[in-house]
C-alpha cells in the first residue's frame, strides 16, 4: 500500500470526513511533513473507492450547513482491515529495524 493511501485511510479512521478535512488531518498529524493537494487526494480517493476501501456516506448530524453540501467518505470494513494489517506490517518492520540498530535517539 502506498504511503498516501495509508495516510488517507488513517485520516478516516475515527470518523467520516470530507476532502478538505482529510487534507487538514494529514497536514496536522504529520506536522506538514506530508501535504496533500486536491489532485492527488481525489485521484487517491477514486482508487480507494474503486477498491472498496472507502465509501461515500451521509454527512454527520453535527455538520454545519456549509459542510452539509460536501461529500463525506468513511472506511469500509475492508478498508479498516487492510489499514490495520498495514499498520501491523509496518510495526513489525519497525521492530525489526530497531533490532538491527536503526533506532533513532529519542
Amino acid at each position, binding site marked *: 500500500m502506498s504511503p498516501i493511501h495509508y495516510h488517507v485511510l488513517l485520516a478516516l479512521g475515527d470518523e467520516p470526513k*470530507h*476532502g478538505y478535512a482529510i*487534507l487538514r488531518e494529514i497536514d496536522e498529524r504529520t506536522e506538514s511533513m506530508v501535504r496533500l*493537494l*486536491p*489532485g*492527488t487526494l*481525489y485521484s487517491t480517493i477514486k482508487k480507494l473507492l474503486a477498491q472498496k476501501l472507502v465509501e461515500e456516506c451521509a454527512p454527520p448530524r453535527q455538520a454545519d450547513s456549509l459542510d452539509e453540501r*460536501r*461529500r463525506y467518505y468513511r472506511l469500509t470494513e475492508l478498508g479498516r482491515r487492510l489499514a490495520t494489517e498495514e499498520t501491523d506490517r509496518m510495526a513489525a518492520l519497525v521492530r525489526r529495524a530497531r533490532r538491527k540498530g536503526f533506532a533513532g535517539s529519542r
Partner: protein
Amino acid sequence: MSPSLRLYRWLMRLCPESFRARFADEMLEDLAQIIETTRRERGLWAAKLLYIRALFDLLRTAWSEHPVPKTATPSPGTRTDAMTRHFRDAIRQLAAKPGYTVLVILTLATGIGATSAIFETVYAVLLRPPAFSDPEELVIVQETDLVRGSTGDDASPANFADWRAASKSFRGLAAMAMTTVNLTGQGEPEQLQALRVSATFLPVLGIQPERGRVFAPEEDRPDGERVVLLTHGFWQRRFGGRDSVLGETLSLDGNPYRVVGVLPASLRFPNRELDLFTPFAMNADEAQQRSSHYLTVVGRLAPGVSIVNAQEEMTAIAAALERQYPDTNEDNGVAITSLHEHLVTGLEQSLFLLFGAVSALLLLAVVNVANLLLARGSARLREIALRSALGASRSRILVQLMTEALVLSAIGGAAGVLLGHGCVSLMGTLVPLHLERGITGFHPATYVFALVLTAVVAAGIGLMPSLSLTRRGFTSMLRASASSTRATGSMNRIRRALVVCQVALALVLVGLGTVTVRSFVQLSRTDPGFRAENLLTMRVQLSGTRYAEHAARVEFYRELEERISRLPGVSSTGAVSMLPLTGGGGSVGFDIESPLEPPETDPIAVFRGVTASYFRTMGIPLVAGRGFDSRDGPEAPKVVIINRSLSQRFFAGESAIGHHLNIWGERVEIVGMVSDVQQFSFAEEPRPAIYVAAPQRSWGYFDPKEVAIRTRSNPEALIGSIRAEVWAVDPEQPVAAIRTMDTIVVSSLSEDRLRTLLLTSFASAALLLAALGVYGVVSYVVSSSTVEIGVRMALGASGRTVVGWVLSQGLRPVLMGVTIGVALTIALARVLGGYVAIAAPGQPWVLVISSGVLSFVALAAVLIPAIRATRVDPLRSLRAD
C-alpha cells in the same frame, strides 16, 4: 471566482471527463479553502507557493488519470488516434528531459509574454478606436495660427459659436473646458476636477448617462438652472453609488447645483480623473470673447462628409471671420483632425520602438530555441535513423518533430500569456491620462495575437530543425550517429548561421539599451533648477464669491503663509500659479519696450504668478537684481522677475534689469533675474520665463494656487498640521494634490524610467540568449570533435593551441554577427534618425560599447568549452571511437 481558481478549473479539462464529473467541484472548493487557510496562517507568499504546487499536482493527476495504452506499438488507427499518439510521444520526449524543456518553455514564455504585453499597449493606445459610437465620425476642431504655423490651439467662445452657426459639415459641434471647483457643505471640503461642456457634448459623443439624463439646452444658458452630472468614479467614491443622490443639491464654489444624472463608468474622455460635468451656461461677456482661447471643440461629421470636405468648409468660415474681426482673428485658420489621431499624437514613436525591440527579442528567442532543438535533434540522430530504418516514413518523423515544437510553443505561449497578463498593468504608465482608457488586462485581440504568435513561433522553431534533420539520407545519418565524430556538417553550418543572427540582433538591442540608459542617466542628472528635497506641495485653489476680490485672495495666502511658516520644522512657504514638472501652466506673449534689436519671433514666455517667498522656498537662486518683497503691493509700480533664458534670448546677455515689458497692456519693469527651472519636463531646453508678483494685481489664471513648503526634516510628517492651518484660515477650503516635490520629480520621469527599464531588460535578455547560443554551438563543436582534439594533442599540440583552435571556431560566427549587427544598427539609426529622439544607436561610441560588451560576453561563453577541450584525454577519446 478568483482568476487563479478559474485557471485551476480550466486546467481541470486536462483530466478525463469521468474524473472531472465526479470530483471537480470538491477539488475546487478544497483548493479555495486550503489557500485561504494557508494565507491566514502562513502569509500570502506561502499561499501563492501552495497554489503553484497545486497546479503541478493537478497536471500530474491529469497525466496519471489518463489510461496508458497497453501495447507499445499501437495498432494503426484513425488520423485522430495518430495525432493523439504523436502528442503523447512528444510530451513523453519532453518530460524525459525536464531541464531542457523548462529552459525552452521559459525562453519562449518570456518572448511571447513580453511581445503580447507590448502589443496590448500598442493596441490599446494606437489601434483600438475610441469607445464611442461611430468613432470615425468624431473630429477635433482647432484654431491655427497661419503665420506662426502653430497647429492645435483651443478655440475662443465667440469663434466656436460662429463655427456652429455657419457650418453644415457637422451633425453636431460641442465644446468643453477643464476647470476645478470646490465642493463644500458635505464633510471635508474637496477640490474637484470638473468639465464644463456645451449641452451638445454628450449627444455629439453619443453617450447616454447611466442614471438620470443629459443636459437640456436651456440649462446651458446663464439664466438656466444650475445642474451637474457626476462621473461614475466620483459617484462611487463620494456617494457610495447611492441612487438617491439624483435630485440632491451640491454646493460647488458656494453655488447650489442639482444632480441630474450619473455618467457611465466606460466614459473616460477627455481624461480618466474627472469628477463632474456642468453646462457652460456662459454669460454674455464670456460668450463674446474672441481673444481668449480655452475651448476644446469636438464635432461629429454629418453623414457622407469627409474630414477633407469639412476642412474646406471650415477654412472658408475662418477666412470670413478673419475679414469680419481683423483685430482678433488675423491669421486664424482652422484644423480638423480625427479624434483618434488627436489622442495618440506623439505616442506612436516610442511605442513602435518598443514593439520593434521586443519583436527582435522574440526573434532571438525563437532562433535560440531552434538552435536548442537542432542540438537535441542531432543528439537524437540515432533514434531517428533507427526509426526510419524500421520503416517510419520521412513525413512521419517530420510530424513527430513538429509536434514537439508545437507542444513546446503551446506551453510557452500559454505561460507567456500569463506572464504578459501579469506585466501589462505596468504598461499603464505609458498611457497618458488624456487617453480615455487604462490598461487593465488583455483585450481579445491580444489573445488572438498571442495565439497567432505562438503558431508562428511553433513553425519557426519546428520547421528548420525538422527539415534539416530529415533531409539527410538515412544511411548517412545512421553512419553519422554511429560515430560521433564530425557528425553533422550541414547542421553545424545552420547552427552557426543561427548564432550569427543572434549576435547581430543582440547587438542592435544592446545598442538601443545603451543609448536609452545614457539618455535616462543624463535626464535624471539634469539640474531641475530648484532643490527638491524637504519640499512639500499642495494645491489650495480659491474660488467662489468669497474670493471674488483679488484682495481677499492675496490676504488668504498672506495669512496662510504666515501661519504655516510659524509651524515648528517649517523654514519657509511660498505660492505659485503652477509648480514645475506638473504639466501645463500657461504662457504669455509680451513686447519689449525699446529692444536692442527687434526680436525675430513674437516673444513668448512661460508665465507664473508667485508670492514673494516663492523663490526662497523652492531654492531657485536669484542671479541679478532683487527678488519680490513687501514693497511690491497693488499701489507700487508693477514689476517682474525674468529667468536667465529670457535674458539671453532677448537681451543678448546684456543686463535686462531696469528694462520694461508690456504684458496684457500693462507696463512692467524687470527688477530681477533668477536661474532657469525645468518647468515642463527634464527633457526639454529651458524656456524664457516671466514671474509676476501676485499681490500687485490679478492675472486671472496665473494667480497662485499651489503652495510649496520648505521643511527642515521629513515634510510628510507635517501634512496634518499644515492642513489644519489651511482650515484655520478657512474651514471650507479644500486642500488637494498633497505630495512632496521629490514625488513630483520621480513621477515626471516615470515614463522614461519604464522605457529604459524595458529596453535594458530586452537588451540583457538578448545578451543572455546570444551568450547561450554561442555557448551551445561551441560546446557542441568541442564535444563532437573530441577525437580530432585528441589526435591533435597526441601529436603534440599544446593546451594553448587547442584553446586557440576552439576560440577561432567559436568567435568566427560572433565576429560575423557583430559586423552584421553594426551594419544593421547603422541602417536602423538612418531610418529612425531624427524621428525618435533616443534612436541614435548609430553613433560610434554606442557601436563601440555594444560590440565590446557583446564580444566580451561571447568570449566568456566560448572560453568555457575551450578550456574544457584542453582536458580531453587523447587516449580515451581515441579509444571511445
